[in-house]
């Protein structure tokens, strides 16, 4: 391959990256512009971040989002770890079917999953609210958690567990002393992923959030619909930095590129 071609190819990739990141960067820069009407020239100011700290609604929505994401992380990671363990260590009839059942939350558009949850939760009396948002987020996170932890478990066989069991360890000791430490990186990665999915999820929360109670993406959406202000840029900057940091940590733990 000629040198010239290599340069062209790299420039093309550079352009794709520009397309992906320039809008986000522009949005972030405008969060630091003083003018409330996005007027240029640019004058640096952190006034909009200060405004956030006084916005009661937004603070409450942020608080709700963080709590839901933490609860979702704890529940989805525990349930998902158990499923991954069952899939990795046992062969049983119907296993393929159960693995297939993880697909609907992944492939059905969120619009449909979200409205179906709305119908069912209303009908059964579960209703809308933070509890039903949590129910929905766990369902969306579970398939990802199972996939991430299963990938980790494929990298080591059952030999260590069998060795421990044959040396007289109880099933609980085998799990606590052998399986868990081996699975740990996968579990931590899956937990970060689950947190990020919940923290960024908009569609499901949108349909399940009742009037008056809100969580961050829903609150941002209604602010956008009312008209743009640099305050939205400020909160968006924080949200996107948090989710990107989470995903970088996830990538470091799970080596997702499949090279190692």
């Amino acid at each position: 391959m000629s040198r010239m071609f290599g340069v062209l190819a790299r420039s093309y990739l550079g352009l794709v990256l520009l397309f992906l990141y320039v809008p986000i960067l522009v949005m972030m820069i405008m969060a630091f512009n003083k003018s409330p009407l996005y007027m240029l020239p640019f004058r640096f100011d952190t006034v909009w971040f200060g405004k956030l700290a006084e916005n009661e609604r937004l603070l409450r929505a942020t608080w709700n989002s963080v709590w839901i994401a933490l609860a979702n992380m704890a529940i989805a990671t525990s349930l998902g770890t158990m499923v991954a363990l069952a899939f990795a260590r046992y062969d049983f009839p119907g296993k393929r079917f159960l693995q297939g059942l993880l697909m609907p939350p992944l492939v059905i558009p969120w619009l449909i999953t979200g409205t179906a949850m709305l119908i069912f939760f209303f009908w059964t009396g579960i209703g809308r609210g933070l509890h039903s948002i949590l129910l929905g987020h766990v369902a969306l996170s579970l398939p990802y958690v199972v996939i991430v932890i299963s990938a980790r478990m494929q990298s080591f066989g059952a030999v260590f567990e069998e060795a421990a069991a044959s040396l007289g360890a109880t099933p609980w000791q085998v799990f606590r002393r052998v399986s868990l430490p081996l699975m740990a990186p996968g579990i931590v990665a899956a937990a970060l992923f689950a947190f990020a999915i919940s923290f960024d999820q908009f569609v499901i929360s949108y349909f399940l959030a009742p009037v008056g109670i809100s969580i961050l993406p829903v609150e941002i959406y209604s602010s956008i619909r009312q008209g743009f202000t640099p305050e939205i840029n400020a909160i968006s900057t924080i949200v996107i930095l948090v989710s990107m940091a989470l995903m970088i940590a996830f990538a470091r733990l799970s080596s997702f590129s499949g090279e190692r």
Partner: protein
Amino acid sequence: MTTTAARNRAILWLAGPAYLWLLATVLLPLAAMLYFSFLTVSPLSGTPEFTLAHYRTFFTQEVYLVNAGRSMMLGLHVTLLCLAFGYPAAWVLARVIKNRWREAMLLLVVLPFWSNGLVRTFSWTMVLTDYGLIGRALHAVWPGAPSIEIMNSYPAILVGLTHAYLPYVVLTCYVSLQGINPSLTEAARSLGASWGQVFLRVILPLSLPGIIAGAMLTFVPVMGSFMEPRILGGTQAIMLGTLIENQFTAAFNWPLGAALGFVMLGAVFLLMALFWPLIRRHVQGVAA
């Protein structure tokens, strides 16, 4: 045998809770939605009777057919744009960039996909205007530059959604391109094939599973999108997705919304059924 019983109990206790959760939050709700779609009114607000009227409404009223068509076209356009820009990028990642750089670049490409989609859509409203940072800079260096003021139009929706799904298409294409043994292209070249022939006869067929997977994973959610058209589309925002959303958040005709949702779901499943044999054959062909 007691060991079998113990084993079955272990499987049940390990997998049971998660599947109960999925049953209550995904499978039963979908069943309830299907049931609602055949009712005259929601059981919450009256005495329902069985009816096919909502499905009939979809197939007879122009507004639904036209907008279902618009949603399909939107899905098709975004998918084609993502493939056109994403496939070459995936190829560069798989064949030109090496080692640690490749890993870093791949992470950079995929990172936006897993960040907040709402915020990324919002960020385009800052760009697609002549009076923003980009518009000002462009007109400063190139006074005669064409206007980039495309907010509140169909092209704005295209840009936002392409931005949203491009990373995923790059990833799926990368995975299948990276799996192609480079000696296959060398063999084809040494036997006299031109670069065009190598691409059409070797690289394209072998990377088809990645292309189809990426296309499906883009087309399906784009068809169900409503937030992106609403923020970027202005008067062009009405799609099947926004019509469904409307039934649940404004018009409160849940049975009609449920029926429209199932029409969309039917289209999704039809598409998957159509393409699955194609991907499967290729997966097996590569493995054999």
